[in-house]
């Protein structure tokens, strides 16, 4: 009687072993999809596309989510996460992001203001000029003609004998660099101390002589903190992200011991 039970147990055990061999560990094949997850996916979809998804589309979203989860679990089962360089890199990235995000998203005004003061030059807005001009081509006696024209203008004569300028007549809100591009580098001295609404010149460009009438001028300025707050905030956050990550790495490095072959030949 005991023998039979033993045999029974043995056979049972054998069957059990065969079953394990043929059917490897079945992990829990249940996938739970939380309401939070669905809601976040749907709102991401909505902000991308601009409207609510239809029923069909929601089904698709869920399908994609499910498929991804299934593939992920199958991959884990196969041990694909071990020794994979890309996964390691991605995880390293992930913790880096986490460390970056430990910064409060809203640094207070004083901190920002200080940052702005330290980096003021970066935000300087160059002066711009709006002007029209009369052009006298080099092909003729441009200097003499321009001087005569200036006198005519001052004497209030209406018709001035000037030439058309290929790059244009009226220039609005141009910086000195942009003016140099259109007239030549030596031309920009014309704009030192120029009076508004008064014909001045003649000034020489690469193409001849010009009389310039400055219509509007906006001084270079440092924008007020409030105007530029968004830009300062984003720059501040960027810089601090970098600092936070570096600091974290330095802190944590000291805990590790590196073992490497000093005699490696390659």
């Amino acid at each position: 009687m005991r023998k039979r039970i033993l045999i029974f147990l043995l056979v049972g055990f054998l069957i059990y072993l065969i079953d394990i061999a043929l059917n490897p560990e079945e992990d829990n094949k249940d996938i739970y999809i939380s309401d939070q997850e669905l809601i976040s996916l749907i709102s991401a979809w909505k902000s991308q596309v601009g409207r609510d998804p239809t029923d069909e589309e929601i089904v698709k979203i869920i399908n994609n989510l499910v498929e991804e989860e299934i593939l992920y679990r199958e991959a884990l089962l196969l041990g694909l996460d071990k020794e994979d360089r890309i996964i390691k890199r991605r995880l390293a990235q992930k913790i880096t992001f986490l460390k970056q995000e430990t910064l409060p998203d809203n640094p207070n005004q004083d901190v920002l203001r200080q940052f702005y003061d330290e980096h003021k030059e970066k935000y300087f807005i160059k002066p711009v000029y709006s002007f029209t001009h009369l052009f006298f081509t080099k092909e003729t006696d441009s200097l003499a003609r321009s001087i005569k024209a200036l006198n005519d203008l001052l004497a209030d004569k209406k018709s001035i004998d000037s030439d058309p300028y290929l790059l244009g007549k009226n220039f609005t809100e141009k910086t000195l660099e942009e003016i140099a591009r259109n007239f030549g580098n030596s031309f920009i001295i014309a704009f030192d101390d120029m009076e508004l609404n008064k014909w001045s010149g003649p000034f020489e460009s690469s193409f001849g002589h010009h009389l310039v009438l400055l219509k509007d001028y906006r001084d270079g300025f440092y924008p007020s903190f409030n105007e530029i707050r968004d830009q300062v905030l984003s720059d501040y956050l960027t810089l601090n992200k970098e600092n936070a990550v570096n600091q974290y790495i330095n802190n944590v490095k000291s805990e590790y011991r590196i073992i490497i072959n000093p005699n490696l030949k390659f």
Partner: protein
Amino acid sequence: MKLSKSSIVLIVALGLYLIYMFGQSESSLEIVDFSIDKSKTQTASITSNEDRNPYYGDLHVHTSYSFDAYVFGITATPDDAYRYAKGEGIKHPMGYEMKLREPLDFYAVTDHGIFLGMVNAMADTTTKASQNPLAKPFHNLNRPENLNDASFGQRANLFSSIIGGNIVEQYPYWHPRVIKAWLTKNSALALKVFDYDVHKSAWADIARAAEEHNDPGKFTSFIGYEFTSSTNVEGGNLHRNVIFNSSEAPIRPWSRIDSINPENLWTWMDKLRDKGVDSLAIPHNSNGSNGQMFEMETFRGYPIDNAYSEKRMRNEPLVEITQVKGTSETHPLLSPDDDWADFEIMNKRIGSRPPTYSMPAGGYVRDAYLRGLRLEWTRQGNPYKFGLIGSSDSHTGAGAYDENNYWSKVGLLDGTAMARGSVPLSADRVSMLIEYAEEYRQPLSISEEEQGTYTAPGFFDQWGAAGLAVAWAEENTRDSIFAAFKRKETFATTGTRAAVRFFAGYDMQSIDLNSESLIKEAYAKGVPMGADLMAEGTNSPDFIVWAQRDKNGSPLQRIQIIKGWIDPGNSVPHEIVYDVVCSDGLSVDPVTNRCPDNGARVNINDCSITQGVGSAELKATWSDPDFEPKAKSFYYVRVLENPTCRWSTWDAIKAGLKPRAGLHQTIQERAWTSPIWYVPPKDNLDIIPLAGSVSAKD
């Protein structure tokens, strides 16, 4: 008939398998919005100029994402390329700095669609793509120690192996990826080395860089890529750059692997346009197409018809006439009476190994224009009615536009004067080249000349400093510049910042060239470059030309108008070059139609140019002395500057040597406008050109 259980299971399994494959749409027609929300405060408003401003740019730039740029040792990213265009300095693979003298107004990074991003991935030994055995030759290709001259042989060979298709090994036909490729119409999936995610993310990065650097009113960037096709049998170059107008673009570029036939590219572009994404394609290097860029039949050898002509013109309103790999305006054999035809002629098929001869007919723009008129005459439509731009085709992210600061195009392969063929080779380099010829079974590419041993002529020495694309647009924004491209109001320069205006009309004589309202009147009374001028009875049109020099370049020597036409009765083509206005107040000889020599010379010892000759600007009103009201014709402007040293002469002088004999020592920088086509009234001829193979009806 009852199926056995196992066959039912098999069919169901196959069905599910197909559904799984099919369910993921990777269609090339899927559109992605790459726009970036930029909350930068805009302090300057965008001013619009109704008379239009000239905007200078480059629509042909490669970065490390291009398979061949990476092979050439380029590590520049799209961001680097855009920063360069805006005026910052970036590094050349050989270590020196590249910097523009003056920033550009627009720029488009156009990496090769085929294998986009793949070579970086294959070279980076930490990626999955690099684990593929076919990727082994690329491992760590651009590690810092390998960024040198000595890696030349390895790189040249890798380049050829990619082009030659050695790494386009496919999976077997039953493999899931092949089925997927077939079902989702993404043929590249069937290739063993292709990693779709890498490809998509490379493209997304290029689009992101374009979006980040686009600054409406100040600087315009375009999302784009290069469709690198060639003909199946002869390897004639059929490359085109595809430029998108907005921040929306397809999820992946349509490449040579999808279809080598450009007509399918245009079909794809048409479909995208229907979906609201506009684009245009710009062919280049027709000089290296062995005559196949501008053929008189379609890619597959069928007759051209009106539908084809319209489709081609709808998608390809522009052609890149000049770039680093030579100029394709015309060839001395095609235009024997044009004294300036021998300009930067490059006569090899692109990518061929060893560099193989490319025949002229069908490979040059002026010839193409005449072919277009002939096709129109035989009622086949005119597919060659394009406008002109120039560009660089630089693979370093930075175009080399100036002859005196020329780093050519392909990074390590031609980054030194020796490699470019302008100065003699060192003994080391000679032995390296001998080794290379033996190892890779190529002809020995050195030439023993009087002055020393040089690289064999006919390759890098034929290349030259890049060109620029210029558009007349109301403001520096994508919409405005793209609209200028579409209406062909553009001109090409050989890298100079000269500016040109061109108009035609019947009442132009009434316009005073010295009045401030010159441009307004010209637009009102006539048509600008790129447009059609309809006939007005038998009236002869007048043309206004106006050019201004590059303030940092050479003075202007003359303005020419080049006319091409076909005989109304038999479509025999003709062309002629008229000098229209000369510098220094000289007059055109009415018999020869030529300006006298203005005495401009170049001192070859130091590249200085004659002072006091040439003009800062030239303008004139001109009418055609040989006008034929019934003949289909085109007129385009060519502006010539006083001669200056060619880059090869600069290289030699900087090395303290004499320029190499056999190369041009000087060049005349120039600009070409898009043509104005004169459209005569319809003829009422019955035309049968080829025994009924082409329909004679309209």
